[in-house]
């Protein structure tokens, strides 16, 4: 006999869901709706005069040739941040997993950077790579690199990618390490007995088993790179030099928060929201198919 308990209550499920729905409505749906509404208005900052303009704000944003460039910049930035943060974290997790003595210390130290706010991470990198006083920039100059991220767009890009990825590495590390430690030892031991070396074991057993975690982290890292990195950009380059690090979310921040052009900023947010929805759906539909749980 089926011993499953069922509830024939009509209201209870809704009641239990209510808090979650309320949170979603208040913190996600409502602001998104506001952004949509604002994106169809041209308004002065104080909201004294407001005009409904249909899609004019979108036309204004998309007609700017620099916007396309900003999209490209964002793509380069996000893929680099996610790629770099995932690769390094995976490497560190594999190494930390192999450590026998003092592993707590290693693990704790590697998690620390996650507690650092993006803007602070930016400032730290700013100090290390400051062309004049930076420790690491002196090293670069000693190596014969003409280090000047204030005018060299590629160097500026590398710097903000480095700062953003550095911050995200700990988060990824935590998940990778947890994943590795949850792995059945017997599998790895069996492979070792069969003569598989550490590298071979990693790529044929550990990495495939980590796929679900890697996929989850890929989504999270992309979203981080898209939305939460403006603190780094603001502290290090302010989108410069010559717009080389002007990623979409920073442009939203600049135009809306500093420039007080709410209509344009809202239209950009909506576009950004669209891009992230498409990206996430694509990741779940195409990338996830190749992920075996």
């Amino acid at each position, binding site marked *: 006999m089926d011993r499953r308990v069922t509830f024939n209550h009509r209201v209870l499920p809704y009641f239990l869901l209510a808090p979650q729905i309320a949170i979603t409505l208040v913190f996600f749906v409502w602001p998104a709706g506001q952004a949509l509404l604002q994106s169809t208005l*041209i308004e*002065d900052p*104080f909201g004294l005069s407001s005009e409904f303009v249909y899609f004019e704000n979108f036309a204004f944003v998309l007609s700017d040739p620099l916007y396309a460039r900003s999209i490209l910049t964002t793509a380069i930035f996000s893929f680099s941040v996610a790629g770099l943060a995932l690769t390094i974290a995976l490497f560190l997790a594999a190494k930390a997993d192999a450590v026998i003595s003092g592993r707590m210390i290693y693990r704790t130290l590697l998690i620390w950077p996650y507690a650092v706010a993006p803007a602070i991470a930016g400032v730290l990198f700013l100090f290390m790579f400051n062309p*004049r006083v930076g420790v690491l920039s002196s090293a670069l100059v000693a190596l014969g690199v003409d280090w000047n991220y204030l005018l060299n767009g590629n160097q500026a890009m590398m710097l903000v990618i480095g700062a953003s990825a550095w911050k995200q590495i700990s988060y990824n590390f935590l998940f990778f390490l947890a994943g590795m430690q949850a792995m059945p030892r017997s599998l790895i031991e069996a492979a070792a007995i069969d003569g598989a070396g550490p590298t071979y074991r990693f790529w044929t057993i550990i990495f495939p088993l980590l796929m679900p975690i890697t996929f989850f982290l890929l989504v999270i890292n992309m979203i981080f790179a898209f939305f939460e990195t403006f603190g780094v950009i603001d502290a290090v380059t302010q*989108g410069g*030099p010559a717009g080389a690090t002007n990623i979409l979310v920073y442009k939203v921040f*600049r135009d809306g*928060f*500093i420039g007080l*052009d709410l209509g344009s900023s809202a239209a950009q947010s909506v576009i950004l929201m669209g891009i992230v929805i498409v990206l996430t759906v694509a990741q779940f539909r195409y990338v996830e198919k190749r992920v075996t749980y």
Partner: protein
Amino acid sequence: MRQITPSRTIQWRWQGSALAAVDRFTIVGFAELRFVSYNFPCEPCDRRLTLLICGNLCRARIAAGGLIRHLHNWEEIFMHIRKTMVAAAALFAFGAGSALAAQDRVTIDWWHAMGGANGERIDAIAKAFNETQDKYEVVAINRGTYAETMNAAIAAFRAGEQPAIVQVFEVGTLTMMSAEGAIKPVFELMEENGKSFDPKDFLAAVTGYYTNSDGQMLSFPFNSSTPVLYYNKDIFRAAGLDPETPPKTWPEVGEMMTKVIDSGAATCGLTTAWPSWVQLENFSARQDVPFADKNNGFGGLDTQLTFNGPAQVKHIQQLADWQENGVFKYGGRRNVSAPLFSGGECALFTESSAGLGGVRANASFDFGVAQLPYWPDVIAEPKNTIIGGASLWVLQGLDPEVYAGTADFFEFLSSSGLQAAWHQASGYLPITPAAFTVSQISGYYGRNPGADVSIFQMLSGEPSGNSKGLRLGSFVQIRDVIEEEMEAIFAGDKTAQEGLDTAVERGNVLLRRFERANQ
């Protein structure tokens, strides 16, 4: 006669026209005043002074703006109290002070963007005002950066929770000015509350920025600065240049800095802070060439940018060319280039006059301050430069008594003693000629060489339509555009003509956008 130790020195200040006696008095900065006011021992009072007077002395030390006097013994203090009893009685309200009832006071919120030492000075100003009267309580709150403060005020206004006073940076001026239903013009506020308030009491170059077309003040000028040239005298000496003769013109900058670099005295000639503000906005004012048409936007919202004229193109191209041999070195936006100068790498530095304190604190060498150079083939007698900084705006929709208190507070802020103290302590310009005179007589400029350069520069010539200021919408974004294009020019990706043409084109789109939103 008992001598008291310096730590117990009492600094006595009073309000009034005591300028004749000013030479006998020493003005100290507001910070110093605060130090003293918090360290002054109120309790061990001399027996000859009654407790009442003693109590009021304690109150007096932080009371209304005026002059500050070092007094060295109680005899002297007693004499001065007698002498100035009438004025003091009016100002410090003898006895009445004890009846202060905080809960009955009308609160006047003042949102500002001053952090660090200047933030503490703002608190001291609010405290001083609160102690001179018992009707109003000015509450100064720091709201972060200028942009954050402005945003906070706008959001608060939209929610009906606006502060009475908000400090807005000069590039936000047109946004505030265009929001007619949101702001209460300062001239109107003062008029309604029966305060005399004459724009002529302020420096013309400062008021020009904040008055409407009828010459009426819309906001209250508070902290203003202007760019000047700092130079490293040690490098000048090492290069065989006269350390007392800084370059006056841009060609001289080129010659002298080539000499500096050739002699090996330094590897970098000039660097600049605030690239757009100094090298384009103030450059245009100083050479008397338009930055935008319609008098730099004072004539209406339908203005077009014109900073791609021959004078500006020549100057920016010259800077770009100087990048090749080190005569000029681009050091980034805002004032992140400051370490290039204070670390002794660059011989010259164009930076805000308000940066003097920072340079003084960080430079371990002998430096001088000079006026911003000009191109003699463009203009024989350079014009004044324009101001940066912020002014105080009053927002609509509050109770009449809040406005009455705000008017009282502005009157308090206008006093020359307070203005002088604020100017000397913060490094911002003295915005009233009276504050300048007070500082001059007190010997402040003698003790702080270079602090008056900015003032003389502000006063060079009658302000023209090109040097009165800038009144452009979306100006924060336009500055971003300009600095982006400047970076492309300095990196050698574009010529000055190409870069400035693009900046004008992109900036005009933003101007039309602002015009559209503020019809």
